[in-house]
């Protein structure tokens, strides 16, 4: 059975040409980039090439790009680094209720260290109101951190507007753009951000490598202490193959962004329309328009998300859910609760995220299989029966 992979918000395949470029940095050009001999110098040069590729994709200077181990490290570094470096100015941070756990749990850690955090609310579509951010700014606010696009429901935030407010009020602005790269245009000048996190494995690059954009002049304490790598701001021997992969992947992602977005969104819209028309009592989560082109998140009433994922898996389809059973906690996704879904509706959520390799045939197969699975699970559900559906 051919597997249909629709969990690309979790991770993507590595592009063949990207993997090919990485290979020789494992076996041939394996030198430590800090060394003076030629294989080390070659590695160093390749890292600087990758840095320029990232800078070009983000519209910044190469000297403003720092390689990390991924999105989580970039978020941790941006937030803790900015909070620590600016503690003399204040200890107040502004964020939103729907951030990724890499941001939320970092903020919770800082709260235990005496920092104060204001979490602005989102509307029913998961959208932050920039005016709420403006009203939350205080004398002692040192950082605003709002994600560019949400990983669960795909809602794209008004980053440029928040950026203008942050600049006007002279507050540092970080955005977690992990889901945005390759999906929507990302330009640090346009967005008005001082710090931006990204992760290679979300845009057909390797896992375990990411980057943090740090605007020139922004004060940031390092998280990693040790050697002088990354101009003394992030110690540790560079993940050379990973960095080469990231550089190659982001260059292609930026080039193909527009074309990919249009094609993927068309397939996604077709799937969405079919589901909403053919399966009764399904709700679309996320913003109807300002949403990542590959994201489809729905809540299917009367059934539980993990059971739905298992049934889909048996049919060869991989997706994800915000149900408690898949999060390993008692509560369903904080994002779905933040947009106002009752617990039982949030438990029945399904997220399908397409890739640039997703085919029309695969989407047609999901359109065919999903209604049957939903019906089967609903017939097992005492909730469905209670709502006076005729089930025998």
């Amino acid at each position, binding site marked *: 059975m051919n597997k249909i992979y629709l969990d690309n918000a979790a991770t993507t395949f590595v592009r063949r040409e990207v993997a090919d470029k990485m290979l020789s940095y494992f076996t041939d050009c394996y030198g430590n980039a800090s060394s003076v001999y030629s294989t080390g110098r070659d590695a160093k040069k390749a890292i600087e090439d990758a840095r320029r590729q990232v800078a070009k994709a983000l519209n910044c200077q190469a000297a403003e790009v720092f390689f990390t181990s991924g999105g989580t490290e970039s978020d941790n570094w941006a937030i803790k680094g900015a909070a620590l470096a600016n503690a003399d100015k204040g200890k107040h941070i502004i964020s939103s209720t729907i951030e990724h756990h890499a941001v939320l749990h970092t903020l919770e850690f800082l709260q235990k260290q005496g920092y104060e955090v204001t979490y602005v609310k989102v509307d029913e579509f998961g959208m932050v109101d920039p005016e709420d951010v403006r009203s939350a700014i205080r004398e002692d606010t040192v950082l605003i951190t709002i994600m560019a696009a949400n990983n669960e429901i795909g809602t794209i935030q008004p980053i440029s507007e928040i950026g203008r407010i942050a600049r006007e009020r002279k507050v540092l602005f970080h955005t977690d753009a992990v889901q945005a790269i390759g999906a929507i245009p990302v330009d640090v000048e346009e967005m008005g951000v001082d710090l931006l996190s990204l992760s290679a494995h979300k845009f057909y690059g390797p896992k375990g490598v990411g980057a943090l954009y740090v605007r020139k002049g922004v004060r940031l304490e390092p998280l990693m202490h040790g050697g002088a790598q990354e101009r003394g701001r992030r110690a540790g021997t560079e993940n050379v193959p990973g960095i080469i992969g990231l550089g190659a992947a982001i260059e292609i992602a930026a080039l193909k962004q527009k074309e990919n977005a249009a094609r993927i969104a068309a397939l996604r819209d077709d799937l969405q329309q079919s589901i909403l028309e053919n399966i009764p009592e399904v709700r679309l989560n996320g913003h109807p328009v300002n949403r990542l082109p590959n994201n489809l998140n729905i809540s299917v009433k009367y059934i*539980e998300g*993990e*059971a739905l994922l298992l049934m889909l898996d048996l049919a060869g389809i991989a997706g994800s859910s915000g*149900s408690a*059973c898949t999060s390993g906690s*008692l509560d369903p996704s904080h994002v779905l609760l933040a947009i106002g879904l009752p617990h039982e509706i949030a*438990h029945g959520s399904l997220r399908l995220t397409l890739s640039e390799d997703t085919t029309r045939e695969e989407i047609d197969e999901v359109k065919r299989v999903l209604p049957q699975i939903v019906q089967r699970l609903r017939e097992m559900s005492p909730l469905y029966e209670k709502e006076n559906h005729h089930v025998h």
Partner: protein
Amino acid sequence: MYTDKVMDHFSNPRNIGSLENPSGVGEVGNARCGDIMKIYIKVENNIITDARFKTFGCGAAIATSSMATEMVKGKTLEEALNLTNKVVTEALGGLPNEKLHCSVLAEEAIHAAIADYREKQKSS
């Protein structure tokens, strides 16, 4: 993360549905937590002759409902009351730790169905 036995009972659940004129019905759990189990039993001469279920919940919840209904069939009420969640879990070849509460739910649903039957007996 699930055993083959769990996946078997999840993908081919036994005893799905309801019973017409059940002797007892037990419903436990709540939608807020993401699982509700409803078990129907038919009792004749103190023996559970048939059992059915409807479950809103994860794979483990559906599999334990299937296994539990299968195991109580043919048992006396006393035997059925002694069917612990541990026995149901073992029959499934084990459950991940975070899913053990699903098996507790199955035990509770059976107890609730038997209590409902006994309540009805008293009033009739």
